């Protein structure tokens, strides 16, 4: 097949100056990415909402983010009197640095010649590379918590706690959704995971050799779907942008970082995190820098500097997905968010991991297939029985809860002042409640809300 790309043994041979060049390149790429990412997002979302979006600064408003950045730098730097100064100043740094670090293990391309050196288009790779990404994500949570904690204001503290709880919850589902990939790739090294997606096997059925697609997104679609949800939760993006739910928490954990470059750090970290999770999605599920199918028929597609283009295109599409979601979905409620993460994503994930492992075990050479199937059947039946009981109980509890709410509602309908709250009657005309017929003027015309 075509060039499988670098493996772990190709790393660690760069001279220091090549390393520095690569690191600076990644840094610049991310900074520019954020500047133009913000512009892209605003432009795209405006178009989706039948607006023009920024179009004053530069051609097509391209320089809008640059102008915003400059403006932030020139704003007054407000530090509220009550904050815990050390933590308050440290938090933006703690949140920004790990965001960049995750990109050091993202594979951008295969081996290339760079100033007379043969080197992979990737800063470095580790035997535990994906773990590094998860670790940096976890350290980022410290930034959020400390920002809220150090601000010492109720909104910030609550926002920080909420955000931390949300991020760690979705981190679990995210971490679990990687397991199936490792199961199939047999490694945690990002470059090798990309290499494993170089070519699919063939599926022999009825004497036909049907080539199976090589990207894990096809073979491990449940993992990817879970990951796609988790990456929204993990980066605090719509529809999971509870931490900064303006309606309830003002700015969430960065309420007190009102302007200036400190706020810019949070903004930067958020967008870099979006790029990171997108890059991980591409690396783990979409073949990394490998060209998509029609292009991959061309022999040179996966050699030289071309893959950089494919990677970039995939990144833009992934980012577009984020924007699309933002334009389409409303924000979820916090209890729904946590319930979804803990009660849906995690059990689904575990079940899927075991299924994937069972399929994998069935394909291993020299295994007792009947034994595995019998074992699997037993596990599934037992799990199903337990689930039935569990679900019945939960259902019963939900019904009890609904009945209680209903009863409370009935009680309030009977006597609106029950519980001691002075409330207006439920049948006031502007509540669109049932208006006693006697009080409706004969020539009245109902004016529905929302009409002019």
């Amino acid at each position, binding site marked *: 097949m075509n060039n499988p790309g670098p493996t772990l043994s190709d790393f660690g041979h760069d001279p220091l100056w090549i390393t520095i060049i690569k690191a600076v390149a990644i840094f610049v790429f991310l900074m520019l990415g954020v500047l133009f990412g913000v512009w892209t997002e605003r432009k795209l979302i405006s178009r989706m909402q039948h607006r023009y979006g920024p179009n004053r600064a530069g051609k097509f408003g391209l320089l809008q983010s640059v102008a915003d950045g400059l403006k932030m730098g020139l704003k007054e730097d407000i530090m509220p009197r009550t904050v815990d100064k050390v933590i308050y100043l440290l938090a933006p740094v703690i949140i920004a640095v790990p965001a960049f670090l995750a990109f050091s293990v993202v594979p951008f391309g295969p081996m290339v010649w760079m100033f007379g050196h043969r080197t992979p288009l990737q800063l470095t790779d580790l035997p535990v590379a994906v773990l590094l990404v998860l670790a940096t994500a976890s350290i980022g949570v410290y930034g959020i918590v400390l920002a809220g904690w150090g601000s010492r204001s109720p909104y910030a503290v609550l926002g920080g706690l909420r955000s931390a709880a949300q991020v760690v919850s979705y981190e679990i589902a995210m971490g679990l959704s990687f397991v199936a990939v490792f199961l199939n790739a*047999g490694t945690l090294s990002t470059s090798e995971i990309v290499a494993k997606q170089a070519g699919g096997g063939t599926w022999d059925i009825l004497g036909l050799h049907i080539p199976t697609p090589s990207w894990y997104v096809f073979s491990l679609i449940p993992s990817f779907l879970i990951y796609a949800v988790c990456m929204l939760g993990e980066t605090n993006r719509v529809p999971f942008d509870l931490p900064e739910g303006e309606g309830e928490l003002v700015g969430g954990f960065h309420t007190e970082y009102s302007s200036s470059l400190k706020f810019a750090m949070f903004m930067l970290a958020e967008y870099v995190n979006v790029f990171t999770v997108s890059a991980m999605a591409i690396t783990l599920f979409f073949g990394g820098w490998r060209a998509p199918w029609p292009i991959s028929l061309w022999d040179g597609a996966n050699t030289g500097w071309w893959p950089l283009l494919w990677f970039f295109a995939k990144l833009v599409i992934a980012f577009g997905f984020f924007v699309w979601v933002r334009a389409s979905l409303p924000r979820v409620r916090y209890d729904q968010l946590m319930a979804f993460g803990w009660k849906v994503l995690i059990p689904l994930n575990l079940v899927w991991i075991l299924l994937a492992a069972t399929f994998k075990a069935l394909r291993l050479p020299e295994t007792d297939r009947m034994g595995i199937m019998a074992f699997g059947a037993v596990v599934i039946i037992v799990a199903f029985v*337990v689930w039935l*009981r*569990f679900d019945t*109980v939960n259902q019963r509890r939900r019904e009890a809860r609904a009945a209680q709410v209903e009863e409370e509602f009935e009680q309030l309908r009977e006597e609106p002042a029950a519980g001691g709250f002075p409330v207006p009657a439920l049948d006031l005309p502007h509540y669109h409640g049932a208006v006693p017929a006697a009080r409706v003027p004969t020539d009245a015309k109902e004016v529905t809300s929302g009409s002019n």
Partner: protein
Amino acid sequence: MNGTIEAPTIEYALLAPMLVVFGAAIVGVLVEAFAPRYLRSAIHLPLTLLSLAGAFALAVWQALKGVPTKPAAMGAVAVDGPALFIWGTILVLAFVSVLLIKDEEHFVGSAAALPGSAEEEQSLVERAAHTEVYPLLLFAVGGMLLFPAANDLLVAFVALEVMSLPLYLLCGLARRRRLLSQEAAVKYFLLGAFSSAFFLYGTALLYGYAGSVDLAKINLALGSVGGQDTLLYIGAAMLGVGLLFKIGAAPFQAWKPDVYQGSPTPITALMASGTLVAAFGALLRVFWVGLGGLDWDWRPVFYGVAILTMVVGAILAITQTDIKRMLAYSSIAHGGFLLVGVIATGSAAQNTAALSGLLFYLVAYGFTTVGAFAVVTMVRDAGGEAWHLSRWAGLGKRSPLLAGTFAFFLLAFAGIPLTSGFFGKYAVFQAAVSGGALPLVIVGVVASAVAAFFYVRVIVLMFFSDPAADGPSVVLPSRGTAAVVGIAALATVVLGVFPQPLLDLAHSAAQSLFVR
């Protein structure tokens, strides 16, 4: 890939007693999750008792079938003569403690409610109950089974945690005197976590020294690895700290009175018996098997610790005015007496004598202490159990049977002949004398005499002083509590009058010593 990884062989039959207990604990959690509230207690109690009895039967069956000469589960767990004997002891003591727990008056309805708050009131009205007590207890017992059988330091650490964590929780569940109970739980947790950290750090250092966490391999390395003595000594000392803490040996005894006092009394009984047995088993295994070649170095330390423990336990007990604290200090002093036996090593025959003496002592002391705490649960006044010694004045006149039984237990603690405590002390001290630790035995005898003073003082108080007008009432014992007191008294008498069968059993269990 570089070849398949061999699946480890695990002797499930050997580990069956432990697996039964852990399995029942997990089933207990499922019961908590799925059974309706009114059924839980009714399911838990038979489940817990049956699993403990079943595990005991399996341990006996194993012992009858012949004791294996090799560690099980790839060298991680050693199911040998002493381990089986200790398992049997722990299982019986746990069974007895469960009978005591059955009386749910001891446990709080809603542990998370602030003491004195409206939520607590409500939990009382709703008759809420933490039936989690049973699975927690089973997990703790499972840890106690694994701890003395762990043949490798990491397994020992896991066992230590599995044993301790449920106990930390159980300590905080007393129904009365909530604040004291919570304080006990937090103290036990903090100090216990600290000592676990010592144990873990010691494990790491010994691993650095020997390149293995396996006890036998560490012992092997004692002769061959040179030049890293610092690692070895600090590591061994830290392991010692972790283990001595669980025993409650001085100078790591500070937690014991507070925790014993604050915990629900049935849990105190379990800790005073089961945990002590398990911790001594583990101490013996680690120091005899893992650091056996180092005994010239640790012996003087244990010498000092044993003397200090006996003296601190016996003298501080005199000053106590609270019955549970007094029993706690008595437990510390008994830990000191047991430590005397740990030092009495030497030839194989000498080791066997010391080990069998210790095993006998643990059984005798375990039963007596469970019985004593069972009596404590029955003496109550308006605020719950009456702990202050002055409240016990004249108890002998109001309920002679109970006071008599308690007096008998106290005499057994003191080691008066015709009680089990006498033969326990005799066996251990005799082994120590023949092991050349005569000064230690003299200290032990003096400490016993001091201890006898405060035991007798309580007896005098109960029988020869006038009862207070508003003195505590002795509640009619539930069947479980009555059974516990009966069993404990019977064991104390039988082992005191007719100790030979158990001595023989302990001897034959100790015959093969610990497997390596």
